[in-house]
């Protein structure tokens, strides 16, 4: 089972790694967007799928990463830029998590949504005050190939981390928190610490992806990189794919990216409407996500992030 998973993972990385040599630019950029959502949705599901703390904060971490990239690109080597994006997102998630992770359900979701808005406005204000500008033009950027392989590496790391977490005591603690937080605590789980650590770990990948993807735009401003749509899409992809399973967010990210692109090209005027309909149908009729369609469904289907 484990061996099969490793083979599948290696094969996936090899295929994704070969795409820039095989496909035209347009399709490679589509693959890049798939990989971005694989990283975002997998890392989201690692924390939110297991604990059922539905976070809309992905936009905040993504945007912070993007700004670290904008600030650091001219002075730091590329790997440090990406690591910096991850690091800033982790620090922010740890602080914010310590403040709001005692709230559950809708309250937590709404607050994480507010978090992105808060950071967006703080950065807008800071940039106006100290840099005299709102947006930033990124001039010296790495090649598209570098960005592609960076995002591939982040996506692979996100999936690998999820695998490791699921096999560890840490993952067991996260599952226990999702099932019954107070019961888990009475059995000895330091719930507060575990939640903050899980939230921060998942933020690392969103921050790294933000840092890497920022250079795809030549001009970034807070409205673009703190776009709440990024956080919402991440949640939808994970849930439609199956947030409780390992493969769900990956399948969800691929299907979603391809579908979104197909609908955008075929039905440019109503594509968002169609996408919405597809998502609603998926949520209504695929209670275990796309991953539940074939046998190897999540360990415990009924534990899927239902509402909240």
């Amino acid at each position, binding site marked *: 089972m484990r061996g099969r998973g490793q083979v599948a993972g290696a094969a996936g990385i090899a295929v994704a790694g070969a795409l820039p040599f095989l496909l035209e630019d347009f399709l490679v950029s589509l693959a890049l967007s798939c990989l971005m959502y694989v990283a975002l949705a997998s890392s989201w599901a690692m924390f939110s799928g297991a604990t059922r703390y539905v976070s809309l904060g992905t936009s905040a971490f993504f945007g912070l990463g993007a700004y670290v990239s904008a600030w650091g690109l001219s002075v730091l080597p590329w790997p440090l830029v990406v690591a910096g994006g991850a690091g800033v997102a982790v620090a922010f998630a740890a602080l914010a998590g310590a403040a709001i992770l005692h709230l559950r359900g809708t309250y937590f979701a709404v607050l994480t949504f507010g978090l992105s808005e808060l950071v967006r406005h703080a950065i807008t204000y800071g940039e106006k005050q100290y840099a005299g500008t709102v947006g930033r033009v990124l001039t010296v950027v790495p090649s598209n190939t570098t960005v592609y392989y960076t995002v591939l590496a982040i996506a692979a790391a996100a999936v690998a981390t999820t695998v490791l977490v699921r096999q560890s005591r840490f993952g067991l603690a996260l*599952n226990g928190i999702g*099932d*019954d937080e107070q*019961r888990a*605590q*009475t*059995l*000895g789980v330091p719930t507060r610490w575990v939640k903050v650590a899980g939230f921060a770990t998942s933020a690392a990948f969103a921050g790294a992806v933000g840092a890497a993807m920022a250079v795809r735009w030549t001009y970034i401003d807070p409205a673009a990189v703190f776009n709440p749509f990024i956080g919402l899409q991440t949640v939808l992809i994970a849930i439609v794919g199956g947030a409780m399973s390992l493969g769900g967010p990956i399948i969800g990210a691929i299907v979603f990216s391809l579908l979104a692109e197909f609908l955008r090209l075929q039905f440019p005027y109503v594509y968002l409407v169609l996408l919405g309909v597809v998502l609603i149908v998926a949520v209504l009729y695929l209670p275990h996500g796309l991953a539940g369609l074939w046998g190897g469904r999540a360990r415990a289907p009924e534990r899927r992030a239902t509402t909240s």
Partner: protein
Amino acid sequence: MTTILDARGIVVRFGGLTAVDQVDLDVSEGALVGIIGPNGAGKTTFFNALSGVVPATAGRLIIDGADLTGKPAHRFAWAGIARTFQTPRVFAGMSVAESVRFGLEFAGRRRRHQRAALGDVPAILGFLGLTDLAERPTRSITPARQRLLEMGMALATRPRVLLLDEVAAGLTELEIESMARLIRRCRDELGLAVVWIEHAVAVLLRAVDQVMVLHQGRKLAEGEPRAVARNPAVIEAYLGTAAGPATGAP
């Protein structure tokens, strides 16, 4: 006998309501203590305070010599306090074996492993007679067995004190008898101190060594079961005065 759990002057207040008012409880090694009281007497709230689930408004909680007053619930589990909940709270997404492993992996791992019966998942399931259900999802077993599983999850933390909250509620006569036997085995074979809350009084009074009666948040009586059962104040609290509910038309 050394004291393991020493609760002094515990008060739990929710806004203007005092649910537990100045209650002391001293549990020594190997004790089997029952707590009874009418509905709303504060029994469960008192347990919540003893296990750190609800912070005590006033009073001190000394466990094994360490002052845990105001500490979060997982510290109580680490210190050797385990509990069950009135409505079984098993992990819905796990199998029976996984649920038991959970306790072993967290509080259980930090505790000295004294008894073979608490050594691993099969030993605990064997002690409870749940071996055959190990791979079943927790949701698919009967409520009576979920109760047993909840006790197994608590035992897996390798506690010194086991707090049982109405584990016999809703069970058949026969099941209650075997539950009482199991509780005595927890004390006799595992060497635990057990504090058992129950509403079904008769079976509890037969099983325990000491009993405490709570009424409206206060300790009404305490002592040997037979003496407490004859205490007029206790009888009145349970049955009301002669002119009380008996004459009240429904």
